[in-house]
């Protein structure tokens, strides 16, 4: 797998670039996480939660009509959209909520972009009786109104963030600021494989159920592994979760799809790996979209969950080693993919996941019919319906 996991590095990427105030909390988290992963009771409890609360395992679905329409590879969908709360995010929040209990902390905080991680955190908090506050940029509160209501219904408090571009990065800043003053009794449930160690490794491990199940299901259905796996990349957690259990299977090609936004000019997209450079953001060294002075660049994506100027350090490592190929999908292509998948399979994907669907639709026709293309369908599109309706309406004009 990756090098130097103990010290929190993946090759030259990762680390703990955070204020001293947070260092003891990270050390505690690291200790508890290691102890938990070695503790059979914890693992059994986590498995039970995944089964009984998240509804795992999620289905491995053969997309027959989409396959026929595209006339190439056999397309399968890993149905993370079928999880309780509608995305893969619940896998991670259940794991971290269990750790919160283990650490004896009573309050959790989270950042959210699309609101899926916020909803998943609020859900886990409700299940375990934890206080929950979720930071969310006001631009995302606007685009993901349904999820704001869900979080509140679940008993969480949504704190609007008005700094910066008022999106995911800014919500992450505010959550870290909160944590600086609340570390003694609060756990910060980070929503992706980003941030200081041990978050990238820990979140990836909690998401690996996606890849482990996929591997087993594929072997059962097709008696072999897929030729290609496609996943969208915001911070990179759904991608890492499906990639890692097959990363040593060299025949499996892996593709990560970042938000290509309106154009590939700086400020118009959120493609940190494809267009960024090594830098430091939110506690880790990775690929970052920055200006020459080191200020974080503006980003844009139609999808709130991908609208982030950084990416998990392990993806940076996979980019450099060439294990994973990273590409982009534009706002327009993602929208077309939402419509296409809805009509072909009766599945409305999240705008985030639609980025992976769009890439798959591009490459499937070039593949042979006996080849297998697996898409990680990270979430469902209910939360995006208002936003999609607005955009389709504007398109008509």
């Amino acid at each position: 797998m990756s090098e130097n996991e103990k010290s929190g590095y993946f090759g030259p990427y990762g680390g703990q670039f955070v204020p001293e105030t947070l260092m003891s909390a990270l050390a505690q988290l690291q200790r508890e996480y290691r102890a938990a992963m070695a503790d059979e009771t914890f693992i059994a409890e986590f498995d039970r939660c995944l089964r009984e609360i998240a509804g795992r395992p999620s289905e491995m679905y053969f997309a027959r009509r989409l396959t026929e329409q595209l006339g190439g590879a056999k397309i399968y969908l890993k149905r993370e959209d079928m999880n309780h709360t509608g995305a893969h995010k619940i896998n991670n929040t259940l794991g971290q909520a269990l750790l919160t209990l283990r650490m004896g902390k009573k309050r959790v905080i989270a950042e959210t972009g699309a609101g899926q991680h916020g909803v998943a955190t609020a859900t886990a908090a409700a299940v375990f009786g934890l206080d929950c506050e979720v930071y969310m940029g006001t631009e995302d509160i606007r685009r993901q109104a349904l999820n704001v209501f869900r979080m509140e219904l679940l008993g969480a408090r949504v704190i609007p963030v008005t700094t910066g571009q008022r999106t995911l990065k800014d919500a992450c800043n505010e959550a870290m600021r909160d944590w600086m003053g609340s570390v003694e009794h609060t756990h910060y449930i980070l929503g992706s494989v980003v941030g200081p160690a041990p978050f990238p490794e820990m979140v990836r491990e909690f998401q690996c159920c996606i890849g482990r199940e996929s591997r087993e299901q594929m072997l059962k259905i097709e008696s072999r592994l897929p030729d290609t796996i496609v996943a969208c990349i915001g911070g990179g957690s759904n991608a890492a979760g499906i990639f890692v259990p097959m990363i040593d299977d060299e025949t499996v090609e892996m593709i990560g799809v970042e938000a290509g936004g309106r154009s590939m000019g700086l400020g118009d997209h959120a493609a940190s790996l494809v267009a960024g450079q090594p830098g430091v953001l939110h506690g880790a060294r990775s690929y970052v979209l920055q200006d020459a002075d080191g200020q974080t660049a503006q980003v844009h994506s139609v999808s709130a969950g991908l609208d982030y100027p950084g990416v998990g350090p392990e993806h940076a490592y996979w980019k450099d080693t060439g294990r994973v190929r990273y590409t982009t999908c534009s706002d327009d292509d993602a929208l077309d993919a939402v419509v296409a998948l809805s009509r072909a399979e009766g599945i409305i994907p999240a705008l985030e996941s639609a980025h992976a669907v769009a890439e798959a639709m591009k490459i499937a026709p070039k593949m042979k019919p006996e080849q297998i293309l697996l898409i990680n369908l990270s979430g469902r599109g209910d939360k995006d319906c208002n936003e999609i309706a607005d955009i389709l309406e504007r398109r008509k004009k």
Partner: protein
Amino acid sequence: MPFLTAGYPDLETTAALLKDFEARGVRIVELGIPFSDPIADGPTIQTSYTDALSSGVTSEKIFDMVRSYRKSSNPQSAIRNPQLALVAMVSYSIVFKHGVESYLAEAAGAGFDGIIIPDLPLEEAADLEPLASSAGLANVMLIAPTTPPERRLEIARHSRGFIYYISIAGITGERVRLPEQSIRTVAELRTHTDTPVCIGFGVSNAETVAHVCEVADGAIVGSAIIHRITDAKDAPRDELVGKVGEFIGELLSPLK
């Protein structure tokens, strides 16, 4: 020890404030290099950063300002013998982007004496320490209330210039009172190190300065100064400098 956001409201004002502070006998100024995502800072300093960035302030322009400030305050000689020590407070995101070695060299060359990188904890600082010392910059390290005792000593051993003790677990901002535990910790720390210890975060008036300086070698005042700059932002520069300078005078009075 006053904290100023470099370039807030503009670089000329920052230079004028430095001159005023130096004349009042301030010995060290911490100059914050504006950053888009300062996670250790509260709204007062954060807003000043955003404001400075939107008017185009960069590290390079700040270095130019410091260079000419050093020249003007010491016109006769090329030898650097400043009254006022300048310490840059800068995010590692910026330092890394510029290249660690060249950033440190440029900062030192411009006339900075030290550097504080608040998001570069002990574990990550190992590579930077020798580079800072060969550039002639003191790498000031921070200790937090959450830092365990043995780790405090380890950080104290690595810190150069002074040790920055963060008085409260939290972000920068004005506080009415500081935790007594922090005062006790600093008193205890001083028995283990000869490096001066300064206390920052939350120190906001002459009274807290006096209180802090009973045990510490210095008090760092940030948000309280920035908030006064913000209040006087639209006034003519002389008036702003006068008002802020007056406040510095107040802060210094218990130390005289």
